[in-house]
């Protein structure tokens, strides 16, 4: 096929991810679920930011009897060391968002970069990168995260690194596909002809055109990263005591769950609500930014 024919065939779709301008108001009305999701996420973020102001006690201050039932002084009761459960839940939002956010940033930075590079250069770069990602994909995510944290020694930072590594391949795959489509388009050729260096072409012309699916995946990954952090901390391989982390609180409460179900139920509910928020928001963003991929 000649160059011209190929061009003609590609002519109708200028970019792999068309930028639509949907009516946001109509969207809000049509998809109240997304708004609920955004609200939940916003609420958790706010709670994390103003934790110091709204928490009635310090996250680690032991000034009450252990395992108190909820009452007026301790709205959610106290944990097994006499710390105020509500305050720890509030501070826990910080840890979850911090670890989740940084882990996803690591995954996005490593994954998207290698995905775009692989798609842009093709050939052996593509082959090597994607085979490495395939190997990382051959592990159940949490098992690989457990292996990495156990080898790096359990800590908050290492949990973050582990989660980042484990979720990088998803971003690589998601970035690579549209990049492959974009690099064949005329405007990339034009940029080359003008003499732009490769890194500039990637940054200015490729990345903006493959960012929509990446944004969606980032939101969805935040929910999985928060879940994974909670799971690792629950297993004692993530955040270490006495830091207030929802997974850790849940794991400590496990021993007392039949004595005091409150402290075993509340941290889990906090995790579930946060994850739900990110899931709903992710679903909504997917519909908004990328109408072609239907919700699973």
């Amino acid at each position: 096929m000649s160059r011209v024919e190929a061009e003609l065939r590609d002519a109708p779709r200028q970019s792999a991810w068309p930028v639509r301008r949907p009516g946001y108001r109509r969207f809000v009305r049509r998809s109240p679920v997304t708004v609920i999701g955004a609200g939940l996420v916003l609420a958790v973020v706010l709670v994390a930011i103003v934790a110091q102001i709204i928490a009635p006690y310090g996250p680690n201050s032991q000034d009450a009897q252990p395992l108190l039932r909820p009452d007026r002084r301790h709205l959610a009761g106290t944990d097994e060391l006499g710390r105020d459960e509500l305050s720890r839940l509030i501070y826990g939002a910080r840890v979850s968002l911090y670890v989740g956010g940084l882990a996803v940033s690591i995954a996005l930075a490593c994954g998207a970069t290698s995905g775009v590079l692989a798609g842009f250069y093709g050939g052996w770069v593509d082959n090597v990168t994607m085979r490495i990602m395939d190997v990382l994909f051959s592990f159940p995510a949490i098992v690989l995260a457990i292996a990495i944290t156990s080898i790096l020694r359990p800590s908050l930072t290492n949990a973050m690194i582990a989660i980042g590594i484990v979720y990088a391949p998803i971003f690589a795959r998601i970035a690579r596909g549209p990049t492959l489509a974009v690099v064949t388009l005329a405007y990339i050729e034009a940029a080359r002809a003008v003499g732009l260096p490769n890194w500039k072409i990637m940054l200015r012309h490729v990345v903006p055109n493959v960012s929509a699916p990446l944004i969606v995946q980032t939101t969805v990954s935040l929910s999985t990263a928060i879940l994974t952090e909670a799971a690792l901390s629950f297993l004692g391989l993530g955040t270490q005591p006495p830091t207030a982390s929802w997974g850790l609180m849940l794991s400590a409460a496990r021993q007392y769950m039949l004595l005091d179900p409150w402290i075993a139920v509340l941290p889990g509910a906090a995790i579930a609500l946060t994850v739900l928020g990110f899931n709903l928001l992710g679903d909504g963003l997917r519909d908004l930014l990328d109408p072609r991929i239907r919700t699973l």
Partner: protein
Amino acid sequence: MRYLVRRLLWTLAALLGVSLLIFVLVRLIPGTIIEVITGTEGQLSPQQRLDLLRSFGLDRPLPVQYALWLWNMLQGNLGWSFRTSQPVAGLLVSRLPITVELAVLTVICVTLIGLPLGVAASITRSVRLKTFVQIIGLVGLSVPNFWAGIVLIIVASFAFHWFPALIFVTPWQDLPVNLEQMSLPVLSLALGLAAVVLRMTRSSMLEVLGQDYVRVAQAKGLSHSIVLLRHALRNALIPIVTVLGLQMGTLLGGVVITEQIFGLPGLGWTLLNGVYQRDYPVVQGAVMLFAVLFVLTNLFVDLTYTYLDPRIRYQ
């Protein structure tokens, strides 16, 4: 056939990569393995250290170590546990059935919950049922399985005064007791996966039900259930199986945590105990086995496509 061979070769290559990654990871352990084993940093004379290194084959170049490790593994030798000196392979093989039982029961449970609810949601006119299914789908996606496990234990003991036996019983010893013990772990694992299957079933069914051939089948007077099962569901199954396959990683990962919560001495439990005791041969073997299980289930899922949809003939 050619596809099958290629797919198998590809699986082998992936497993080779996996083994290399695990090998490299274990070499990254801070401090040499000798200090980890003896726990006596600085108390060994250089000669003792050297002898120990030699006895573990750790004085050889890394590529040789890797080749030896791989060769031993292929012969079913995964090394010996640091703690109990038991052969790791034997230990893992003895734990495997529990994990497999848990996983298989979960997949059955997921199918039994997810498929019918998804199909129901796709054909019903009842708003209440639709909302109910949607809520189950969202809740299932967001609830961490370890929390589901804890809540199930609390509910079972408080509301039903039901405490399954604590000591694990194999199905060969006593099937009813075993199933009773498995019920809560399976349920806690199945909830999240069922939500995924349910959502996929619903959207996939909705898409298929709008197709012309379904209308033709209805028009020629086939009974409703035949149209639904033979024409619609069969074609809707492919994306459902895909999603189920993608969730195998979640399932196998969930198994680790669930076994820990419910004290089921399976593969995940063994892995975690290895991690807690810094028993690296056990960790290494268990992680490898998890990867093998994962890769094999993915292979199995890929092969079922060709069965479900004869049109799929991979080049």
